[in-house]
């Protein structure tokens, strides 16, 4: 069955999908009900096509009865793709517009929400180190997927990707060579330990958990694009609440506070790179 069966029963697919997401929420507490559905649908159909299962209802049965199976399935639903210095222009703008402000603080807190396997966290740590600020901050990096957090803690990445990261780093206005920040070992690179001294990785779900901490700076990039409008609004508000007055919010390049509940609550620092500053009310 799988894809071709559902092509002539599209409404049935939507019903079974909704039931599956309800079931996952009731059983495991992960709430995907207000995530964009096209991606979930594609992943589920793909999962059916490579397994012995023929309907979403059968898949639901497996998921309800096996936590292990569910944990694997969670990987289908969460998109963990990331890179170091992704969107170099963003880091460049950050250096220009945010670093001078951070330099006026004796101590500050940063929250990476939806940090995936950590590349973004280490990228910012490198930048802060170059600006002499890493010792002055506490970094929280959270995700709801424990598997990616384990990888993030290790700070070991594929050598094959390094060339791209080096290019990104240079474009972002890096002051040295990326190679100064890692040790090569066989097919991998391991980031220098001093980068992670200030970082705490932790499990946090933006949809079902509450405010994580009060911080001066939040990076929540390429997470909100997976949410439907209403959920985007709610999570934006949670981010807003987690910032101190004048705190900085950085979103992904295709995310924006425009047309959301928090639009009027921030000033724009860099429209294109999606950097905002919480207003003092």
């Amino acid at each position, binding site marked *: 069955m799988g894809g071709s069966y559902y092509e002539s029963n599209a409404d049935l697919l939507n019903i079974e999908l909704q039931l599956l997401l309800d079931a996952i929420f009731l059983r495991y507490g992960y709430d995907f009900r207000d995530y964009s559905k096209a991606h979930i649908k594609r992943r589920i159909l793909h999962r059916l096509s490579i397994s012995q299962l023929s309907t979403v209802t059968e898949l639901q049965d497996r998921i309800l009865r096996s936590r292990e199976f569910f944990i694997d399935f969670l990987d289908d639903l969460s998109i963990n793709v990331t890179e170091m210095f992704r969107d170099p222009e963003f880091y460049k703008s950050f250096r220009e517009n945010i670093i001078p402000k951070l330099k006026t603080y004796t101590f500050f807190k940063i929250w990476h929400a939806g940090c995936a396997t950590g590349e973004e966290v280490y990228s910012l740590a490198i930048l802060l180190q170059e600006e002499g600020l890493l010792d002055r901050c506490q970094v929280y990096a959270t995700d709801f997927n424990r598997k990616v957090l384990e990888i993030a803690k290790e700070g070991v990445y594929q050598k094959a990707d390094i060339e791209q990261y080096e290019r990104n780093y240079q474009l972002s206005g890096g002051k040295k060579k990326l190679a100064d920040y890692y040790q090569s070992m066989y097919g991998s690179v391991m980031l220098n330990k001093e980068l992670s001294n200030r970082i705490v990785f932790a499990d946090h779900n933006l949809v079902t958990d509450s405010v994580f901490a009060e911080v001066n700076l939040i990076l929540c990039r390429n997470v909100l*694009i997976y949410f439907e*409008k209403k959920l985007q609004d709610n999570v934006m508000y949670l981010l807003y609440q987690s910032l101190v007055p004048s705190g900085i919010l950085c979103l992904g390049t295709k995310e924006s506070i425009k047309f959301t509940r928090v639009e009027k609550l921030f000033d724009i620092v860099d429209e294109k790179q999606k950097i905002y500053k919480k207003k003092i009310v």
Partner: protein
Amino acid sequence: MYKAIVIGTSYGGIEALRLILPQFEENFPLPVIVVLHIGEHSNDLFIRHLNNMCKLAVKEADSNEPVLPGYIYFAPPNYHLQVEDDFTFSLSTDVKLNFSRPSIDILFESAAWAYKNTLIGTILTGANSDGANGLKIIKEMGGKTIVQNPCHAIASAMPKAALKAVMPDIRLNIEEIAGKLIELAYSK
């Protein structure tokens, strides 16, 4: 009768789109959604250029934006573009498919689920096989499928792969495609 047009193209796509998109009049009744493989970099320039040439408004699709007639939407570079069942866009940074992000397959498949038999899918010139699977799904769900004649395409691999995956309803040379799309768009 039709509700949307999706177009997929890569190598030679800019030239091909320049022959098609400016021919749509201001009151063109269908939204047009395009995936053009253009590399990771911004396509601001290209969009501005097309905007000057076209009577319809040309823009990059935004997340949660409603899909409306009067617009030609492009997938942003480095993001997959999808149409949701409520006819809004969603974006994703998921892994590349067919070495491509944006991937034509991902747009076509999601649009097929949303529009079912009211979708027109079009594959133009291109140098890889992205889009073939997506076009097949459009066809299976009752939509109309168009493939550019590979013999005259700047790059034939993409239309050839599409022809291999699916017997399209219509196969045309590039000069004839705009006319056909207009005819279908106004058909009852």
